[in-house]
C-alpha cells in the first residue's frame, strides 16, 4: 500500500453553519499533484474506530502546495463529519491517502455543464480552476439552501458572472433541469455531484432529452450509512469479526488487520469487491451487477443482514 500523507491542519474556516473548510499542508516534503475531480481519504482518529472518509479536493490543481476540502456536517453522521466539525483544530495532524480520481473532466467535451447540489460543489471548485486555465467553455448550476449549504456562493458569483446560476431553495428558486439541459450544443458534457435524488434527476432528464450516456457524468458523495450489527467470518481462518451498526464492513475488516484494496469508500469504484460464500447481504453499492451480487459484495457500503453471519472468501 502507498504510504499515507502526513498533513497538518493549517486553517479551518466555517463557511456556513453546516460547512467547514479545512486546509492541509504537508508535515514534511511535498504533497502529490492531483487532477480536477480527485478525492482523498481522510483518516479520522475517532476513538475506538478507524474511520476513513473520502472528500473531494477543491483547490487549484496547478498549485498543489496545500490541499483543501469542505465538509458538511451530516445529520446521520457515523461520526466522521461530526469529528471533523467538533474535534479537529488548527495545528492538528491527520493522515490522508494519496489523491485518486473517479470523476475527471472529459477531454472530449466542447462545453462543460456542471451541476452541483449543496456540498456537491466541492469537486467543481477544482474543475473551475482547471477549465479556466485551459480556456474551456463551461457553466455552473448550483442548487443550495441559502445560509446553510451554499458554501462559496458569493465568490463563485463574482468569479464566474453569467456562467454561474444559483438556485436557492430557501428563496423558493428551484433548479429546472429540463431547462438547463435542453438544446445544448452537441459536444456538451454534463457533470453532477450531489445527493442521489439530484443525480437520478440529471440522468433521467438527460436521457429524456436525448443526451448520449457517455456525455453524462456523476459522482455520488455517498459514504457508508449505518445499519444493523452483524458478524463477518473469514473463510480462510475462521476468524469472526463483529461489525457494529455504525461501522462499515470495510472499516471492521481494516480494524481487524485485514487490508482490502479500496478507492471511493462509497460503493462506486468496485475496487473493494470481495467474494462471499454464505450469508444474506444487504447490497448498497451502485457498481456490481445482479449476477455479481450473488457471489460478491462491496464491503465499503454493503452489509450482512441484521444479526446474521456473513462468511467472506478471505
Amino acid at each position: 500500500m502507498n504510504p499515507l500523507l502526513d498533513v497538518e491542519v493549517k486553517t479551518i474556516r466555517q463557511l456556513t453553519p453546516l460547512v467547514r473548510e479545512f486546509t492541509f499542508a504537508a508535515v514534511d516534503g511535498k504533497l502529490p499533484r492531483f487532477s480536477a475531480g480527485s478525492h482523498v481519504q481522510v483518516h479520522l482518529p475517532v476513538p475506538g474506530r478507524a474511520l476513513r472518509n473520502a472528500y473531494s479536493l477543491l483547490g487549484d490543481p496547478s498549485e498543489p502546495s496545500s490541499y483543501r476540502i469542505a465538509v458538511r456536517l451530516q445529520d446521520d453522521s457515523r461520526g466522521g463529519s461530526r469529528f471533523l466539525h467538533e474535534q479537529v483544530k488548527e495545528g492538528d495532524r491527520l493522515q490522508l491517502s494519496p489523491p485518486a480520481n473517479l470523476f475527471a473532466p472529459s477531454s472530449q467535451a466542447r462545453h462543460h455543464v456542471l451541476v452541483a447540489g449543496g456540498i456537491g460543489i466541492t469537486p467543481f471548485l477544482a474543475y473551475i480552476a482547471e477549465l479556466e486555465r485551459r480556456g474551456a467553455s463551461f457553466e455552473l448550476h448550483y442548487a443550495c439552501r441559502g445560509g446553510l449549504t451554499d458554501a462559496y456562493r458569493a465568490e463563485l458569483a463574482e468569479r464566474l458572472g453569467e456562467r454561474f446560476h444559483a438556485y436557492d431553495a430557501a428563496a423558493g428558486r428551484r433548479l429546472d433541469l429540463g431547462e438547463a439541459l435542453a438544446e445544448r450544443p452537441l459536444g456538451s458534457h454534463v457533470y453532477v455531484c450531489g445527493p442521489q435524488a439530484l443525480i437520478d434527476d440529471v440522468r433521467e432528464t438527460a436521457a429524456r432529452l436525448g443526451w448520449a450516456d457517455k456525455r453524462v457524468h456523476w459522482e455520488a458523495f455517498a459514504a457508508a450509512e449505518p445499519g444493523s450489527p452483524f458478524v463477518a467470518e473469514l473463510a480462510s481462518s475462521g476468524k469472526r469479526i463483529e461489525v457494529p451498526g455504525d461501522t462499515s464492513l470495510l472499516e471492521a475488516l481494516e480494524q481487524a488487520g485485514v487490508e482490502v484494496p479500496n478507492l471511493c469508500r462509497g460503493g462506486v469504484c468496485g475496487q473493494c469487491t470481495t467474494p462471499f460464500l454464505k450469508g444474506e447481504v444487504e447490497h448498497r453499492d451502485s457498481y456490481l451487477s445482479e449476477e455479481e451480487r450473488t457471489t460478491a459484495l462491496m464491503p465499503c457500503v454493503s452489509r450482512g443482514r441484521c444479526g446474521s453471519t456473513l462468511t467472506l472468501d478471505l
Partner: protein
Amino acid sequence: MPVTLKPLESYRDDFTFRNSPEAIARFPFPFPEDQYMYSVNIEPATPGAPGSIYEHWFDIDEHYRSETTERAKVLQKDPQRCIVMPHMHEACWDTLEVIMTHLAADYPELFRLTRDGDQWTWENHVQDIRQSFTFGDADTLPYEPLEYIGRQVQGDFALLDQRDNDLFMDAGIVTGPADWSLAFDAGMSFKQWHSPVPMAHELGVFDRALKYLLNIQVDRPVRRLNWTMTINPRLDTSSETFHEWGRERGMVTPENVGRLVHLRVELQFMARLARSNALMFSIRTYLISLEELVTNPAWAQRLHRVLRDLPQALADYKGLSRYRQTVVDWLRQYDPEAAA
C-alpha cells in the same frame, strides 16, 4: 552502483549491438514456467533489487547511447513516431516531469534537475545537454515536451487518455515497437488496439486488465513483461518498416540461428499521471541473441520447451512461424530431457 555505458553500437545495418555478461545477467527472462499462455500478469511495480531492471521507474542500461541514437534516426526519417493530440499536452508535461525527476534522483551521475518554481534546468551529461526552460511552456524547449524527454530516455511511451471507463492511445513516442504502429493505433481504445491478439479476448484477459489499469493510482505504478522474437538486434520493428525487416524471418538457418534470432522482452510499466489523470504506458525493450541467452542453461532449457509447445495461433501472431522449428531444433541440445 553507477551504470557503465557502452560506446555506440547499432540496431540496424551492420547490427553491432551485443550484451555484456552483466547485461545478460540482468536480462528479464520472461517465463516462470515451461509453458506459456496469456494471463493478466500485472503486478505492483515495487522497487526491485539494486542493479536489477526493476530497481527504478526508468531503467538506464549500458545501451543508453545506442538506443537514444537509434531513436533520433527513426524520428528523423519518420516524425509520425511521435504523436500528441491537442488534449494531451498536460499529459506530456506530466511525463516530462516524472521522467526528469526519477532520472535525476536515480542516476545523479548522468542527469541533474534544478527547479525554481516553473523555471527548470535540465542537464544530461551523456548527451551534453544543459537546458533551461519554463515548465508548461512548450516554446521554451527545442521539441514538444514528450519528444524532448523521449529523446533522452530508453523505451517507448504511449500516453493513454482515460474517459468513458476506457483508455485511448492519444499520444506517444514509439520508435521501437514490436510489430505495431503508433500512427495506426492513435486514437484507438484499449480493446481496439488489442484486437489483433488471438485467444486472449476469449480468456477475458482484456476485460480484467482494463479494469485494473483504470484504477491505477498516482505513485502506485504496475508492471508486466511481454515477449516476442526478432531477427537481428533490431529495435525498429514497426509496421511502417515491415518491408525492411519482415523478409529477414526467411533468413534463419541452423548455422546462423544462434546469432540471428533474438528474444525480445518488453518491461511494460504503467503509472498514473498526476495532473492530467492520463495513464503512462512505457515499454522498455530488452534484446538478447539466442547465443547470449544459452549462456544461462536454465533459460536455454526452458525456452526450448516454451517454443516447442507454444500454441500455433500465438506463434503466428508473434510472427515466429517461419523459423520456429529451426529455433526449437537448435535449442534442443540445451534441454537434457529432450536431447537424450
